């Protein structure tokens, strides 16, 4: 009986401690800067601080990808703070966890904008998370910087898209493949919005070019058995596999493709969701020789990039690699800071106005904000994975390409864009 009472007491103590310690809504926040949800209403009392929200998945399936972007954004904030901050104020990040769950992204975005009244949010990875945050930022007239390439067909007045639009990644990749690798295409993707929408555009493009589509396959997210797909690929003998698989599936697919005896000599696989980070997970030997399409590689030769890579490794470890979304998250913070400096205020409408046609020397080369659709001009780069896990650039567009999220500039896409009523 005594033992039972003791446990009961212990339990109560534990519960009370946890609940008291964690009730962020009561204003109890941890002293460690940057790692805690902010207290309510402090943004007004602290005159020399500008609060910004960082909203990525720190837990769940997307954490492995999003944590790196989160790290890069914190790095940019720290660098800006060391150089005197913005408008003479320090930037204070308010970090929230989207937990790979779309309604959570909506909830946390609402919290950041309505409760913490942050000046802007940097966040999101999956299209679904962006779609979840979109109505929230529009409703409270907030600002979101979204750092990942996506399927296009969107242009929210409250979102800046620092990743690639389809015409800055997918369309030029298909053109390049048609010219250099052959005309028999096989489309393979995870079963969600990005691959399906991207492939709809690719199919229109292939038809226009008179190329052959020999297969189209979607597997559930997290799928790991590709033997049937590979058997189909073997019988169809495509020149090119256009790969829009996401996450773990890539590991299984490339390993099984190699085991099946198909090398990059036989069939080229071009991936649009595999960057340096993912290459580490797949294993460089399994994917070496295959291609990727992005706007930035760790090997991209600009003075800004060598500084960026060095700073990133110094902050987070020598074994870390940089990749396209990491770079896009990083320069997104700089673009916002530059727009705030130019506007002289953090007011959303003023910042949006100031951001128009704003230019910045990002690690991946010059980027420029498109005043109309709030995407950025970026240089397209097609690269080949090397044995050491790095990606060697084979071709680039020479100059930053104007973003065209609705593919208005392409005749073959007229059906796609028109159906949106744009």
């Amino acid at each position, binding site marked *: 009986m005594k033992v039972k009472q003791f*446990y*009961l007491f212990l*339990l109560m103590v*534990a*519960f009370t401690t*946890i*609940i008291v*310690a*964690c*009730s*962020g*809504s009561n204003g*109890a*926040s*941890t002293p460690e800067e940057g*790692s*805690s*949800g902010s207290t*309510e209403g402090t943004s007004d009392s602290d005159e020399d601080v500008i609060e910004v929200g960082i909203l990525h998945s*720190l*837990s769940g399936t997307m954490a492995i990808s999003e944590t790196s972007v989160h790290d890069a954004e914190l790095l940019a904030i720290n660098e800006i703070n060391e150089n005197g901050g913005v408008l003479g104020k320090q930037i204070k990040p308010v*970090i*929230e*966890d989207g*937990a*790979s*769950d*779309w*309604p959570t992204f*909506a*909830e*946390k975005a*609402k*919290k950041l904008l*309505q*409760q913490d009244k942050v000046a802007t949010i940097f966040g999101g990875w*999956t*299209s*679904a998370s962006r*779609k*979840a945050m*979109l*109505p*929230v930022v529009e*409703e409270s007239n907030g600002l979101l910087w979204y750092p990942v390439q996506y*399927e296009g*067909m969107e242009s929210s007045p409250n979102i800046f898209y620092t990743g690639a639009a389809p015409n800055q990644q997918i369309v030029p990749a298909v053109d390049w493949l048609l010219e250099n690798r052959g005309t028999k295409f096989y489309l393979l993707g995870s*079963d*969600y*919005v990005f691959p*399906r*929408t991207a492939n*709809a555009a690719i199919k229109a493009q292939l038809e226009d070019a008179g190329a052959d589509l020999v297969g189209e396959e*979607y597997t*559930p*997210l997290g799928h790991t058995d590709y033997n049937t797909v590979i058997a189909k690929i073997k019988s169809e003998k495509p020149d090119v596999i256009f790969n829009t698989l996401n996450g773990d599936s890539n590991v299984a697919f490339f390993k099984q493709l190699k085991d099946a005896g198909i090398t990059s000599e036989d069939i080229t696989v071009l991936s649009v969701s595999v960057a340096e980070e993912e290459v580490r997970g797949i294993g460089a030997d399994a994917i070496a020789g295959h291609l990727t399409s992005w706007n930035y590689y760790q090997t991209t030769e600009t003075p800004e990039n060598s500084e960026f890579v060095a700073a990133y490794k110094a902050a987070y470890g020598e074994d870390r690699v940089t990749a396209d979304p990491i770079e896009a998250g990083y320069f997104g913070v700089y673009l916002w800071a530059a727009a705030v400096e130019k506007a002289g205020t953090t007011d959303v409408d003023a910042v949006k106005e100031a951001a128009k046609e704003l230019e910045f020397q990002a690690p991946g080369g010059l980027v420029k904000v498109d005043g109309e659709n709030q995407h950025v001009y970026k240089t397209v780069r097609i690269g080949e994975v090397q044995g050491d896990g790095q990606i060697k650039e084979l071709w680039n567009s020479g100059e930053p390409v104007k973003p065209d999220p609705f593919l208005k500039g392409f005749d073959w896409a007229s059906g*796609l864009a028109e*159906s*949106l*009523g744009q």
Partner: protein
Amino acid sequence: MGKIMNQSIFNKKNLLLLGFIVLLIAPLFLTDFRLNLLGKYLAFAILVIGLDLLWGYTGVLSLGHGIFFGIGAYAMGMYLKLEASGTTKLPDFMAWSGVQELPFIWVPFQNPILAIILGIFIPLMIALLLGLLTFRNRINGVYFTILSQALVVVVVTLFVGQQGLTGGTNGLTSFNTIFGFSLASTTTQTVIYLITAAVLAIVYFASKVLINGRLGQVLIGIRDGENRLRFLGYDPAIFKTFIYALSAGIAGLAGMLFVLQVGIISPTMMGIIPSIEMVLWVALGGRGTLIGPVIGAILVNWAKTSFSESYPDIWLYFLGLMFVIVVVFLPDGLMGLFKKFQKRWSGLHDKQPDSARVEKNYS
């Protein structure tokens, strides 16, 4: 005097009334954002009442209530999406999925009343059908649980795969108005919150009446000795199917209230993990008590929010710790703890000479 105090403190009716009054006046002291969150927790609380009827009282464990919740939410979401798109245009995701005209299954959802009815009716019918097929064939216990889980996989795969019909992984979001009222306005949100609180109260009391009646006795009979009941001439399959369908309908209702306040529904909300989480809320609050699961749902979700806001890096560990503590030390959930205290408190006062009788426990 002490005795009266003592009785009124642990009088469940008074406590319930107090709780409900607190919920009703919450809009006065909570910020819009927090009220919105509380509304979400209450939607979950409605759901767990149904789940408790099924698991706590009838002893049928379903790990697939996420889909009933989700279907209800989608029904409401479809109406909201159509209203947001206007009469002439298709919902945005259909356009970019290559759908040319409104699919026929979307047509009924143009009417809000019909959408609300279908949001309850569709989950109810699915559960009825599944219940008839399984319970009649005496598929019980763990086999039913596995089946309910399989249903989740099937439905989620279907929803993700049919992007043109359901919005795929993105789900449905970007809503504007309901019955012409802006969803973004504070007044609308407060009204929706109050409706949620009222629905919670209605569902709670209706379930209480159901459980205290003769049907409740049969249900508990099924839970504790199904074969005996069968020998007495009852057909457990009918009762189980009924309560399964009822809980699915309640889940659909909760889903509709959820989507109104959260503004998004996607297949992640109906998957395996949320379905299991819902059962955890019931276990944590105390199964077979009705009020326990309600408290469990509100408490766990509140803890989830506040842990994750305070410790975004490690909040999941806190949550896990909480589950472990409750399961290990409180097998009867929080209500078990409450009863223990009640007993001890009453016992303390019992020793005093003047307190002859202690107020009877309601459950």
